[in-house]
């Protein structure tokens, strides 16, 4: 069930977007945050072979089956998280970045993230004044079960609520902000540990940016159905 090949003809000098038929898994090993279970990861490999040429390219990723939901609790106004349908008490820590001169080695990330897991955290919040963290950061969060709250590059202080008040309309180039945001989402979106994208720190991004981000990051309608905790009559697939 877990090996699928499809033929595809791509015209010269063009890009084609292709969606494989969904792969079915019965009772897959699920990925759980630190302290709730194992962080099970599957090796996913996508390969393309071209007739008359052979293997042309390949891509691989460690993928975790999990469902992360979060809602605002009407009573407390706080955000409640669920993983694989189970409510989770968030024990989170703030994260700016690993080194002020950006000496961000894989070894350094491994040590930092394992340290947070050993401190019994199950979430790391990447503050909006720091970085969109790197794939190596997320890789070790996948391995050690640390959910990641990733903010985009807006802070109250620099974007309209600081002293002096400055940049009330955020960065000068909103299109550039969205180009960077979209590329960052594509870089990081397959990581099991990525739990939440957040517009900024103590500040909402300017309306046009916020609307575009919400639109780009909304859940696909297909997953709206299976994102509810209801038993489905028929399989929408």
């Amino acid at each position: 069930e877990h090996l699928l090949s499809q033929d595809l003809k791509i015209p010269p000098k063009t890009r084609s977007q292709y969606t494989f038929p969904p792969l079915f898994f019965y009772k897959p090993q699920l990925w759980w945050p630190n302290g709730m279970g194992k962080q099970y990861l599957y090796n996913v490999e996508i390969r393309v072979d071209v007739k008359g040429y052979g293997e042309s390219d390949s891509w691989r990723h460690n993928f975790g089956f999990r469902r992360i939901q979060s809602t605002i609790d009407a009573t407390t106004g706080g955000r409640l998280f669920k993983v694989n349908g189970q409510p989770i008490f968030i024990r989170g820590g703030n994260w700016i970045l690993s080194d002020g001169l950006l000496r961000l080695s894989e070894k350094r990330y491994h040590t930092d993230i394992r340290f947070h897991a050993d401190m019994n955290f199950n979430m790391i919040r990447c503050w909006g004044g720091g970085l969109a963290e790197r794939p190596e950061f997320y890789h070790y969060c996948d391995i050690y079960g640390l959910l990641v709250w990733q903010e985009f590059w807006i802070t109250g202080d620099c974007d309209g609520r600081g002293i002096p008040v400055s940049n009330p309309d955020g960065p000068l180039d909103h299109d550039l902000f969205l180009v960077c945001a979209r590329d960052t989402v594509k870089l990081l979106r397959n990581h099991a540990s990525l739990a939440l994208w957040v517009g900024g720190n103590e500040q909402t991004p300017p309306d046009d940016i916020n609307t575009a981000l919400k639109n780009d990051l909304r859940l696909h309608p297909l997953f709206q159905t299976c994102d509810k905790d209801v038993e489905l009559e028929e399989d929408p697939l």
Partner: protein
Amino acid sequence: APIGKTKLDAGWLAARSTDVKLTGVQLTTTHPPSSPPSPPWMEAAVPGTVLGTLLRNKLVPDPFYGLKNETIIDIADSGRDYYTFWFFTSFKCSPSTHQHLDLNFRAINYSADLYLNGHGKSLPKGMFRRHSLDVSDILNPAGINLLAVLIHPPDNPGRIPPEGGQGGDHEIGKDVAAQYVEGWDWMAPIRDRNTGIWDEVSISVTGPVKIIDPHLVSSFFDDFKRAYLHSTAEFENRSSWLAECSITIQVTAELEGSICLI
């Protein structure tokens, strides 16, 4: 050339732009810097920042100790050129006829002018974006390729007020870049605002068709007994003929020990 990615994370050199009288074309054709380097060239930390390279060469004190950060000139006082640096390296690769070679930068702060074997290209602004260039047509047939990248600091590095404060004068907020670099209540300002090739540089060899940004999503039914893996990717045919492809997805799981289930 073997299909796949090779990181370019060794053998980089750097020099302050104002100390180099040559152009990017000359640096990557007739006048490459010598190795080992002689002034103004020095060994560079890539991935890393300008300040990381200066510290590696002991040209600045380590800003993490005592008040040494105060002895490093801030970009607001030195001007942007002082932290505008050339980074140079060379790499070998000889792809065959139907192969393509991409030069990939996973992140640069803040913008750059790139030269490869005498051909120039601008890399647009933004600290959080990838750059991937198909350089197949400008490779050096002899196999040794010379790469020089002129890295420019953020457009609005700002000035740190005497009282410091969160985000300094907030000018950095005008750019799409990390804002902590102007200093915060818990953090001294970073003098070069993290200018540099701060993330992975690589070259990747593919055949005529390239896989771009796959997206994997799982959906669950029957209380997680039934799950589906949905996979979408872009495939780019860079040849001038119709590519008849067979695309494959395979999922394996490492069971206990080294036994794999396919």
